[in-house]
């Protein structure tokens, strides 16, 4: 019995190489670029901002970038090893920030924070790192481990659940109010340089961030665990065949990511001087964008992406939007960050530095 294939019902297809969607996507690119250029020209002609202000913006941008970069590092490492968008990563940072707040608050009341900034800062940093790492490890053990071999949306949805769980846990334990992080005099100090006043704490954040990133880079590049981690990121199955204990590597990755998130939490406290249970969410999502921008899976990429995002977010409202006469451009800072995030996801999902992973995902 032959199958009846009816007479050729072929429409003479006009095969177009360019669809309407392509046109619209180009329009989107050109539109965003147009807004950026027009805004920049407008702002520069306007001349409302002096160069000291621009320097301020840049320094603040680098400070913000330090936070984003620290968070993005965790995202990128976990994604590299597990192919999981760890939605809860921003909340790891939040848990670190909360513990930093409690330690700092106790020190502040006793006067220790004022009189001995360096040991106090060390204590705060270490506590925050420990707490964030512990939270990260717990999340890995109880929420993510069952999904080690699972593809699809289930792990991602679980990660959203973890994020909610952590936020609400901290809300339950410590209340939903915004708490002010103590502000001793050394945190308010400014440094004058060539007539520019820069907040000392911003320089401190940037400096520490660079230090920790170099440390992380050395760990990943030269220790045995770091090498195993890169092997698993490259090809988990092959790494397992070579005798690498993938579970251990994943735990190690979460440890590193958690520690970085803890540091980011302290930085966040320094910059925004407040903690609350929802604080991790938006920076978390933005940092994910930064990680993708730099090429997910790439550590230098995450750092680069983080700093770039911080700069755009800080300079952007003044540079791109003010010139267009948009009222309240600073309210739209998140819009700029999220637009960057979406543009990256749409047009450059492989990022600037990441080629390998992108191809595997495609």
């Amino acid at each position, binding site marked *: *019995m*032959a*199958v*009846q*294939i*009816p007479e*050729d*019902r*072929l*429409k003479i*297809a006009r*095969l*177009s*190489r360019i*669809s309407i969607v392509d046109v619209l996507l180009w329009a989107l690119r050109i539109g965003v670029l147009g807004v950026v250029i027009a805004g920049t020209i407008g702002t520069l002609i306007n001349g409302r901002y002096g160069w000291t202000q621009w320097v301020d913006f840049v320094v603040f941008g680098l400070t913000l970038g330090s936070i984003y970069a620290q968070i993005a590092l965790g995202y990128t490492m976990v994604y590299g090893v597990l192919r999981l968008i760890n939605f809860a990563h921003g909340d790891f940072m939040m848990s670190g920030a909360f513990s930093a707040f409690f330690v700092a608050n106790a020190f502040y009341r006793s006067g220790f924070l004022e009189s001995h900034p360096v040991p106090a800062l060390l204590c705060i940093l270490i506590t925050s790192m420990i707490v964030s790492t512990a939270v990260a490890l717990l999340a890995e053990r109880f929420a993510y481990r069952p999904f080690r071999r699972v593809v699809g949306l289930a792990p991602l949805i679980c990660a959203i659940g973890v994020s909610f769980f952590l936020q609400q846990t901290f809300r339950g334990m410590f209340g939903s109010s915004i708490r002010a992080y103590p502000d001793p005099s050394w945190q308010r100090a400014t440094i004058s340089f060539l007539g520019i006043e820069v907040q000392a704490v911003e320089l401190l954040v940037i400096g520490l961030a660079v230090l920790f990133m170099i440390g992380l880079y050395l760990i990943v590049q030269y220790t045995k665990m770091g090498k195993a981690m890169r092997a698993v990121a490259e090809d988990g199955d092959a790494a397992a065949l070579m005798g690498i204990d993938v579970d251990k590597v994943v735990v190690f990755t979460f440890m590193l990511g958690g520690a970085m998130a803890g540091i980011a939490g302290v930085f966040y406290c320094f910059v925004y001087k407040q903690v609350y249970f929802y604080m991790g969410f938006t920076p978390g999502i933005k940092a994910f964008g930064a990680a993708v921008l730099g090429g997910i899976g790439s550590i230098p990429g995450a750092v680069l992406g983080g700093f770039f995002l911080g700069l755009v977010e800080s300079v952007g409202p003044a540079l791109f939007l003010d010139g267009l006469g948009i009222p309240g451009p600073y309210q739209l800072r998140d819009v700029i960050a999220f637009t960057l995030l979406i543009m990256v996801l749409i047009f450059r999902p492989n990022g600037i530095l990441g*080629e390998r992973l992108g*191809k595997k995902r495609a």
Partner: protein
Amino acid sequence: MAHDTILLTNKVCCNFGGLKALSDLDLEIIENSIHSLIGPNGAGKTTAFNVISQNIKPTSGEIWFRGARIDGVKPHQVAEIGMSRTYQNIRLFANVTAIENILVGMHLHLRSTWWGSIFNTPATRADEKRAHDEALRLLEFVDLKGRGDIIARNLPYGDQRRLEIARALAAQPKLLLLDEPTAGMNPHEISDMMDFIRKVRDEVGVTILLIEHQMRIVMALSDKVTVLDHGQKIAEGLPKEVQGNPAVIEAYLGSGKLVPKKARDAARATLNA
């Protein structure tokens, strides 16, 4: 009639980063023939399939199919004008039934619209009925009669292969690309599959472009053979012509530094068998 060209590729290149997966591939496929694409692992056969079906866009070169230039168009448009394919590692919709797999294959040839489905119009119902009947016929054609309600994942391996071909045929192609349809089969199953492929060509009247590993099958089935190595065409012609080509033998067996002469001769004997 018999010498109409259905597919023509002209200097098609495909690069991944620095790797040249295909370079300057020229192919001409004659209507109603069985054309085989052979070559050692990594020769670029599957890449050639992906490029022809526009799953991957070629880096350069032209591809003409049934009088239309198709390089750079969307894959579903290629399917629309009559090309369908199977995959080396079977890619069925594993969690739905066999018949639903075929119904998806018929997508292009169903007339029902989404609003028609919402209101369940008579036209839609008639269309669905026709589709179901045709799907049953196709199932019968590929020897899967009565297995339409089995979840695709639970079918035996050989049935899955044939179901995948049935799904491809449901799109009523003029050119069918089969990527190693005999992979992982025992000799008995292989000879069944060979008969089946001939039957498809003869009874359905489609042109077949076949990727195959095993010389025996290629020799027995093909009207024409193209040999690829490192993304380049190294030989082309009738099965007999290709068989004795030294370049082909070298590509398959290497330059001979590692393989002893004896083994090479033995292998050559099998190739020529």
